[in-house]
């Protein structure tokens, strides 16, 4: 009878779960193909190992990149529109204070960060998720600046020109990959968050 008292709480709405996994796939394709494109003319004195890239050669990588771009952007528009209109962003990602971020990041580093209630994001999570959204916006804008420096030259100009846009695009990718790596490590450390992002529900002892 005790077991029956276990409560299931709804943590992630369906829209968030679907867009999360579509985004994960789109980002994986964009990053892996983007690395191959980077290798065709490296901005910095290093190359990405070809084994980690997608596309086989430049033309293949470009095909992947400009196919997945539509998935990324359409999915991103659905997610951001839902987040703003439904109040999901306001409820889950705000408020966020420097003091709370500092406190929670310290706790996380000491391995003491509380995850009892998966329906409430701590300040470190809020920062990470907001930063991912911001990275996505910067990546799309700098990507458009590189792809269409004539037709969309206003965007390219805001970013400081074509060559600057390449640097911004790369740095935003690097930050995004870093956050995603931390995110995946956190999921490994708190594995029950993974089924929650699929079913949308989390068990909460009453």
């Amino acid at each position: 009878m005790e077991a029956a008292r276990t409560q299931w709480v709804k943590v992630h709405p369906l829209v968030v779960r679907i867009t999360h996994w579509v985004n994960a796939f789109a980002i994986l394709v964009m990053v892996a193909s983007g690395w191959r494109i980077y290798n065709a003319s490296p901005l910095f004195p290093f190359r990405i190992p070809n084994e980690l890239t997608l596309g086989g050669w430049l033309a293949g990588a470009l095909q992947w990149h400009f196919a997945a771009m539509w998935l990324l952007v359409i999915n991103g528009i659905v997610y951001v529109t839902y987040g703003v209109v439904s109040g999901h962003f306001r409820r889950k990602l705000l408020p966020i204070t420097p003091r709370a971020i500092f406190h929670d990041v310290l706790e996380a580093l000491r391995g003491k960060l509380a995850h009892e209630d998966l329906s409430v994001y701590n300040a470190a999570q809020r920062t990470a998720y907001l930063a991912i959204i911001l990275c996505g916006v910067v990546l799309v804008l700098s990507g458009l600046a590189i792809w269409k420096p004539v037709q969309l030259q206003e965007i390219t100009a805001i970013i400081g020109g074509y060559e600057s846009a390449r640097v911004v695009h790369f740095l935003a990718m690097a930050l995004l990959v870093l956050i995603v790596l931390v995110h995946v490590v956190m999921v490994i450390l708190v594995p029950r968050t993974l089924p929650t992002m699929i079913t949308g529900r989390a068990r909460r002892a009453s």
Partner: protein
Amino acid sequence: MKKRSMETSLAGHSGKLIRSIERRLFLRQGLSLGALALLSGCDLTDDESVQKLLTGMSRWNDSAQGWLFNPNKLAPEFPESAITKPFPFNAFYSVDEVQTVDGASYQLELAGLIRDKKPWTLPELYSLPQTSQITRHICVEGWSAIGKWSGVRFSDFLARIGADASAKYIGFKCADDYYSSVDMATALHPQTLLTFRYADETLPPKYGFPMKLRIPTKLGFKNPKHIMSMFVTNEYPGGYWEDQGYNWFSGS
């Protein structure tokens, strides 16, 4: 596009095909996001249905770019001080293999949907009204360089020879066996120039003597050099890189 990138890519392709059946079995056994991430891109790209999807998306991107193309939007122009020196040489072969075209006997051949197909000699072409531009050349590889080209506005030349402006494509055949094609809207763009000079001097062989079609609204490989003939057509002519998988429209 550089020679080495093409060599490595072609070598990579032929070898990988043999192993594709094994790979497909592996795919069927357990396709997780993790496995997908670990697979090298080439194997996935070699899969027939995946390749079909990617090619379809590339055609869709041709349409999307055609729709996005604004015939009145001008590529940014730069001052002389912004010119990249030296301007990089780039082709599917190395600089010591550059074709030398004999200017004295040269004739530009015209074919297809053109009213007056009389071939053009260089002195005839040089006598047409000339204009200059300093624009950014952007390579599909990502790098860019700013240069100065001079020549005749291509839309003026097309009007002079009576090219059918309602046709879809203009194709080019070059002395180095390169070939490419562009959409009519881009061909008629005011900054699309049939150029005979680079940095105020006759186009040297490495930059495409006797002429290069300079299109600042397209990526570098859509700017054919050493043009020997051109034709106006409604049948998709493709191109050297385009036929290998590079996006055909490749607009900037």
